[in-house]
């Protein structure tokens, strides 16, 4: 039995379709992170799951029960809001016990549940304070505590960490991850932050313009993006894209025609329908570009800017005729992520190198044309962390 299921959810606002037949199912209390650019419909989807917005079509099932027409309070869910949504006139304990009190539970039970949740989140000392007296992180804990108190089968998180500073965010991220393992409940977590998605999710749902682009474990989405959108969305710094044409096609591979880069051939999916002269986009992750002179293909370039955020260096390279479209620096320079022990300075001349294997190819519609890769390639998702 599915413990959580969305069945062809549709939502329209006037003429505009905000959600188009969204389906999703989980069987074993997964941590689903719904991620996507702002305006993609992910928050609306969460509200529909919560019951705060009605769906125009489709069903929501929780533990096999159709809850589509139920009030939020009857769905066995709990929600954590971006703004925390704590009641300023109630103490922490009253905030946390609110749901149970509304359900008319006995006081003793409420107190026990509140204390239990408080101890899990280490906020037992604040129970008699008002939200105004707490810091942002503490408020966030209370908001989570309020959800825990209800012990729902599904937790809904609406960008819960976006109001926190970077250090706190990392910490809360880890805590929510630990909480998930401890509570054994389905979690639906909406965020626009790919780091949160990559680190926390058992599965990621990547949304764009009201539809799902790809569902899968984080490394799958990173290593095998189904299309250019997914490839570009996940990974920081972003994948380099270069516009090129198909030079020739054979059974297993095709040749790429790109000014400034000769003789590149890449493997092709069997179902890929490409003919000579088609416009394609090459994708190359910054960490797959080498600066040590190795690699099958070489490119001469000049460093235009170096960033050194710490663990690695990120360099923007002017590679002459080879220009990146939608590049990070907006100048058509290639982004390269290098070991910081490789010294690079502005205006240095460098030789870039990469392997054909590292290249992704997308057709004009954005679909991936290169074959699926095994997940234990060097392009591991943890590299995407910044």
């Amino acid at each position, binding site marked *: 039995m599915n413990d959580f299921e969305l069945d062809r959810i549709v939502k329209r606002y006037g003429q505009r379709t905000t959600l188009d037949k969204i389906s999703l199912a989980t069987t074993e209390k997964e941590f689903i992170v719904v991620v996507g650019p702002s305006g993609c419909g992910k928050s609306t989807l969460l509200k529909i799951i919560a019951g*705060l*917005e*009605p769906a125009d079509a489709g069903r929501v099932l929780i533990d096999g029960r159709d809850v589509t*027409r139920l*009030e939020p309070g009857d769905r066995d869910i709990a929600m954590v809001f971006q703004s925390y949504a704590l009641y300023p006139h109630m103490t922490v304990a009253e905030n946390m016990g609110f749901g149970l009190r509304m359900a008319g539970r006995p006081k003793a039970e409420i107190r026990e549940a509140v204390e239990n949740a408080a101890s899990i989140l280490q906020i037992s000392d604040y129970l008699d304070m008002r939200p105004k007296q707490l810091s942002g992180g503490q408020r966030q804990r209370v908001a989570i505590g309020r959800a825990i108190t209800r012990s729902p089968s599904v937790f809904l998180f609406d960008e819960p960490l976006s109001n926190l500073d970077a250090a706190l965010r990392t910490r809360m991220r880890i805590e929510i991850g630990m909480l998930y393992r401890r509570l054994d409940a389905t979690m639906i977590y909406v965020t626009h932050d790919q780091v949160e998605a990559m680190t926390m999710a058992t599965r990621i749902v990547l949304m764009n313009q009201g539809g799902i682009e790809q569902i899968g474990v984080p490394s799958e989405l990173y290593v095998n993006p189904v299309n250019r959108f997914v490839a570009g969305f996940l990974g920081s710094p972003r994948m380099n894209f270069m516009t090129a044409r198909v030079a020739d096609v054979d059974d297993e591979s095709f040749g790429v025609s790109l000014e400034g880069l000769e003789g590149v051939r890449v493997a092709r999916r069997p179902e890929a329908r490409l003919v000579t002269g088609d416009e394609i986009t090459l994708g190359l992750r910054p960490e797959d570009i080498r600066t040590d002179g190795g690699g099958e293909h070489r490119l001469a370039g000049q460093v235009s800017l170096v960033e050194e955020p710490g663990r690695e260096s990120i360099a923007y390279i002017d590679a002459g005729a080879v220009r990146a479209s939608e590049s990070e620096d907006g100048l058509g320079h290639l982004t390269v992520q290098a070991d910081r022990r490789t010294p690079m300075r502005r205006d240095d001349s460098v030789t870039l190198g990469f392997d054909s294997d590292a290249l992704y190819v997308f057709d004009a519609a954005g679909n991936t044309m290169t074959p699926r890769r095994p997940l234990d390639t060097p392009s591991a998702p943890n590299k995407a962390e910044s």
Partner: protein
Amino acid sequence: MHSLLHRHRGWLWPTLFLAPGVILFWVVIVASSAESLRISFFQWDGLGDMSWVGVDNYIALFHDPQFYTSLKNNIIWLVLFMAAPPLGLAIALLVNQQLRGLRLVKTLFFMPLVMSQVAVGVVFTWFYDPANGLLALVFRAMNATAPALLSDPQWVTVAVVIAGLWPQVSFCMILFMAGLNNLDDSQIEAARVDGARGFRMLYHVVLPQLRQVNFIAIAITVIGALRSFDMVSVMTGGGPFGSSSVLAYQMYEESIQSYRFGYGAAIAAVLFVIMALFIAWYLYRMLRIERGTA
């Protein structure tokens, strides 16, 4: 929340919540107003039978010189009352300091607002009295004769409006004080850093932030001007010979003193039309602002 009626019980509570207020308001206010409009098509002394006269009351109204005097006075009220928002803002700016004792000062500035209009009317009648009033005293001190404002058909309306402005300025001042309390401090600070101060700060930084308050202040002032009654009633009774009358007062006078309820209702209808124009503008603005911020 989008479509309430599609829910099983979602509509029940809201309906129950709305019912008492809506029913009371409709029965007492809306239905009564409609009934008044109906009465305007009858000849009725308020006591006996009503007889249908069609639009006769309106025809009579448009031939009544008093109607044009009242209408003109309503316009004078409207125009002069527009001084209330800027004056209110000026006083609000003056007292918007956090010093000891200013709370009392602010309360004293509110006084005219919280006093009843009857009391304000009494106060100003006393003030204007051409023989013994404070105004006369001032004029005498300057070796001049005080004008008899309340008996001069040229000036009487202006004099009454000034009395009416007194509480109205207070009202606007309160609104602006609330608005000033709610300013975005970072904008003010940014402007200070950019070198703005004094009037330029007011005009370019403060006023734009007070737009909503401004709107409410103007709305309340327009309503106050069109609804003016108590002051006229207490201070002049519409006199001398009707020259300070306004539509609301003329309506009252025709109905109560002359027992011409149908005619009074016709005046009410005209006032209603004028008011409706304003209300439409107000609602349009309000809803537009709302959509803008939503």
